[in-house]
Every structure is written in C-alpha cells, then in structure tokens.
C-alpha cells in the first residue's frame, strides 16, 4: 500500500510538471513535506543538493532518492516509475487529443506553464524560512543570491561553493 501511495504521489507530480523537472520541485516539496510528512524541509533540501550534483534529470533523481530513503530499493523503483510514466501518456496520447479537441489548447498550455510558478514560489518561501534562521545564514543567503543573479555559474559549482562556505563558516 505504501508503494502505491508513493507511486501515485509521483505520478501526480509527473503528470502536472508543466515547464520541466525544475518546475516540479514545488509540487514535490508540498507533496513530500507537507501533505504526507515523509520528510522535513532540511532533508528535502539535502536530497536536492545531492540530486543536483549527480547526473540525470532532477525530478527523476529526486524521486529515486525519496523512494529509496522511505522504502528502500522497491520504493526507489516505484517513485521513479511514477514520475516517468506520465511523460509517455502525454507524448503518445494527450498531446494529440488536446491539439485536436481544444482549439485554444495553446492558451491552456501557456497558462499552465505560468501557473506552475505558484508552487515553486511557495516552496521557495517555505524553504527559505527553514534554512535562514539567524544573521549568519541571512548574510550567506543574500551573498549567494547576488552571486546567482550577476554571475553565470553552473548550478553544480554553485552548490559546491555554498557547501564549502558552510564548512568554512562552521555551520
């Protein structure tokens, strides 16, 4: 039963991940941390760091990690299947249907890609409140934000750098 729940949660996320894997992170956070309470915000962020520095699509990596952490190897398989299967449904079935049935499907797809900002922003705020707890963490967050906005650094390097700064500042 737990495997089914895990599969269904990730199926739902994969099915609605308009705008790609990154866009799904908001929904994953909501589903895993808030709705099911399977993980804390900090554990969720740890797995994102690791998913980011490991090769592969981030939503798939996250699903595999969460599944493994919760239910071992069978859990990893259920979650990974759950997040990947909807892509087949969309590519083979749905995209053809809505192209034919709905004349304004273009508007709908565009609107869905804008609306996906909602869970991402909510997750960002919720994660910020977990990680930024005092002046020290606030200063690091602001510095990293400025670095991110004004320098084009690969994300993997960016994570490595923030981790190193955490070590230097003895968090």
């Amino acid at each position: 039963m737990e495997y089914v729940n895990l599969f269904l949660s990730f199926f739902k996320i994969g099915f609605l991940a308009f705008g790609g894997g990154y866009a799904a992170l908001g929904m994953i956070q909501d589903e895993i941390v808030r709705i099911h309470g399977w993980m804390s915000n900090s554990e969720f962020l740890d797995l994102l760091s690791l998913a980011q520095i490991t090769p592969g699509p981030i939503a798939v990596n996250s699903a595999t990690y969460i599944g493994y952490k919760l239910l071992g190897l069978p859990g990893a398989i259920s979650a990974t299947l759950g997040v990947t299967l909807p892509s087949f449904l969309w590519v083979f079935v749905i995209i053809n249907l809505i192209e034919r049935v709905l004349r304004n499907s273009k508007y709908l797809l565009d609107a869905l890609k804008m609306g996906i900002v909602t869970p991402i922003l909510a997750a960002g705020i919720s994660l910020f409140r977990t990680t930024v707890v005092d002046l020290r963490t606030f200063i690091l967050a602001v510095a990293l934000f400025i670095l991110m906005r004004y320098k084009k650094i690969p994300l993997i390097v960016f994570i490595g750098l923030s981790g190193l700064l955490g070590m230097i500042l003895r968090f």
Partner: protein
Amino acid sequence: MLDLILTLMKISIIGLGGGYGMLPIMREELVEKKKKLKDSEFLSIIAKAQSVPGPIALNTAILLGRMEKGVLGSILCALSIVIPPFFAILGVAIFFEKFRHVKLVESFMKGARIGVTIIIINFAINLMRRIMNHRFAFFMLALLIGGSLAIIVFKVPSILSFLVVAFIIVPILKLEEGREKWNT
C-alpha cells in the same frame, strides 16, 4: 537504434546539473557528431518536449525513440536516460545516509541547503520576469503571488492552487492581443 541508446546513456551520465544541462550535450552528440538529426529537427523535438509536462531530457528521449522505432523505441530511449542516473543517485543515497552525521558533512549540507533554496527562489523569479512583457503582467503576478500565499498561509494543496491560477490566466491570455510567445 543501438547507437541512439548508447548516446543517450552517455549523455545521461555526463549531463550534470539536470535536464537543461543535458540539452546542449544532446545537440552536440546527435546533430554535430552523429548527424542523426538536422538542427531544425532537433529544435522542433525540444519545443515539443517542453510543451508537455515532465523532465525535458526524458521527454526528449521519448520523442527521439518514438521517431526511430515507435513505442518500443521510446521505451528503450527512456530507459537509457533514466537507468544510469538511477544507479548513480542510489549510490549517492546509500553513501550519504551513512555519513550524514559526520560534522563536516553536516556543515557542508547546511551551506548547500541555503544554496539550493536560492536556486529555487531564483528560478521562480526568472519565470515571473518572463511574464513582465505581458499586457496584464501586473494582474498575473498578483495572481501568482496570491496563489503561493494561499499555499503557505491557508494550507491549500499546491496542485489545486496551481490549477486554479492557471485557469484564471487562460481568459486573460485570450484577451491579450499580439501576446508574446511563451517558449523555452
């Protein structure tokens, strides 16, 4: 087909940093080196992969496989892009769960958590900036921010909030004349 599978496996391993990191490598391998596709064909596949939900790299692999060998091809290509990272992250997970309580690892992860938080907030900001050239941008931004507050403050499930916001945006998009395209 075998060639495509091997190429995708290779890409899935060297493509660090998620799907968007993989796309340039995919183009280089499939268009420039292997000459399997023309640049324009590759671009139209990417456009389609981005118009449906799901990880871009996975959608692209499914579409490439479908072009080559139908359903079977798409399953094989999806497996090629998912299985190598599956074992990589599994290895990392097993390793990390053992060492997570080492002090130095803990400090590193605490710093990295802030880094990831910033990446997510920055991603949201970039998506919102793309909306700025819409005629009703201000109203749309208010909707998006209102929707996220509903999630945080009133504990509305994020999927519900997201769908409601999207359905309100549809008629606004229809209203706008000469609207900008929402690509990439």
